[in-house]
């Protein structure tokens, strides 16, 4: 049953150095506040999983929290490359990370297999694609009925998944709306899950087919308004595209990166996120 607690408590209780962790969000509802708390608590040696590692994974990598990255698209969408990731892969700063690279189809299928309790996912993919040469976890399986050869990848089973959502009710049931991404699968695939929310309400007021995670399927819930910034929460505040554009320059140099991290992460608190989205309130 989901327990309500502060974000520092939830991270301390659910994320350990050396864990495999997913901070999921497909452009929308990216759990920035949770990742920042992990950085503040000095968690290290993480195997990070995410389909679309962007700014917040750049921050985790640049701060030296990451041992290995499992991903399918690592970029600052519409802006450019991830400069801290590049510095790690190309120059070994602050250290070299291990890379396990897939396609989106593979990652989405692998999360779904994890949620379904299956050991692997089969799908039609990677045909002619060179990733199969460099990633030993991309294999194939033959359909026992038709003989078709399909791609196979291991299920993703994180120790812990962090997501951000619009709201929870007082029993801990969580509602996710808008671009729902792969968050439901990422939570159900994980041993533990931490959900930050914009608000806690008496009634979710959800459509019968809405994307709801029942409270008993979630480990911890934390109230962190603005916790997705500079990503967004549909219906609450819009994506801070200007911040994504600004990140490219901040991350370009190690010094400017570290100074920014000190001011905005190490010396900040989860409560600071509420201020960051004030000028972005819906609009959406």
């Amino acid at each position, binding site marked *: 049953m989901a327990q309500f607690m502060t974000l520092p408590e939830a991270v301390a209780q659910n994320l350990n150095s050396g864990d495999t962790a997913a901070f999921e969000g*497909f*452009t*929308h509802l990216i759990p920035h506040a949770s990742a920042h708390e992990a950085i503040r608590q000095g968690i290290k040696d993480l195997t990070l999983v995410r389909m*679309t590692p962007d*700014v917040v994974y750049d921050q985790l990598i640049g701060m030296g929290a990451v041992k290995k990255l499992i*991903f*399918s*698209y*690592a*970029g600052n*969408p*519409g*802006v450019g*490359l991830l400069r801290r*990731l*590049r510095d790690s*892969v*190309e120059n070994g700063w602050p250290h070299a990370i291990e890379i396990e*690279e897939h*396609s*989106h*189809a593979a990652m*989405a299928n692998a999360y*779904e297999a994890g949620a379904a309790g299956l050991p692997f996912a089969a*799908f*039609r*993919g*990677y*045909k*002619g*694609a*060179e*990733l199969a040469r*460099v990633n030993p976890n991309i294999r194939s399986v033959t359909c026992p009925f038709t003989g*078709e050869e399909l791609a196979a990848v291991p299920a993703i089973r994180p120790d812990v998944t962090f997501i951000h959502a619009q709201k929870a009710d007082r029993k801990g049931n969580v509602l996710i709306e*808008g*671009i*729902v*991404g*792969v968050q439901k*699968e990422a939570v159900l695939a994980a041993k533990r899950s931490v959900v930050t929310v914009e608000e806690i309400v008496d009634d979710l007021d959800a459509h019968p087919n809405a994307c709801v995670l029942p409270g008993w399927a979630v480990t911890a819930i934390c109230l962190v308004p603005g916790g997705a*910034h*500079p990503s*967004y929460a*549909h219906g609450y505040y819009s*994506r*801070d*595209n*200007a*911040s*994504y*554009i*600004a*990140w490219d320059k*901040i991350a370009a140099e190690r010094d400017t990166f570290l100074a920014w991290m000190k001011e*905005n992460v190490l010396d900040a608190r989860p409560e600071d996120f509420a201020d*960051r989205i004030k*000028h*972005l309130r819906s609009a*959406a």
Partner: protein
Amino acid sequence: MSETDFTSNEMMTIAASRALKNTDVCFVGIGAPSAACNIARLTHAPDVTLIYESGTIGTAPQVLPLSIGDGELCDTAVTTVSVPEMFRYWLQGGRVTVGFLGAAQIDRFGNINTTVIGDYDHPKTRLPGGGGAPEIASSCGEIFITLKQSKRAMVDKIDFFTSFGHGEGRDHRQRLGITTKGPTLMVTDLAVWKPDPVTREFTVVSMHPGVTREMVQAECGWTVRFADKLEETPAPTGIELSTLRDLNARTKAAHSGGKTGEAA
């Protein structure tokens, strides 16, 4: 009525937009393809179905999204599905007629690299990776590609096969058991290219107004083949050009909105 005062980028976007039909279901890549697809929707193909990999189906944004998952895409979509559903039911299920892709690096057979420049383990430049493209390239009915020409982008040999085009050419796709057509069109800022029916090598079939063969060759890393019957791309119409410029102006205003973020 056609215009004479336009940039090569505008010509590229508009020429690419003309390739989409009103009945197409199109998986839209971010960047140049996104502009082209939305110009198609705002001009000759109002009912074209645009799909972004974030799960938005039948979306009709007023401004171009910066990412593939801006809220605008969801707000204006017929429906928004989860990412696993997007890739399993809609893409792998064979519902998408056209995949519209950009490319960091491409070869004459439409094979695309968006993974690394240099060696995979010790890259000179670590690019974002494939994202949805490896399966878009094999599961969509056909693939349109649009990119700005340069010798750095159009190379004799790509450093990494992120997405398979026609491989080594001829029947390479069939030999791998791929049943879809693969790249059937490439639109650059200088020309329109189509694969040779036999070798599958991209061949210039139409040059944009004012462009010469020498200009096309100067910005391409392989020896360019030109079709026997080489045409001139019709210049943008007044409607096409004003639609594109309005869209770009709305987009620019939207993405610079709010204070410039000091807190990413």
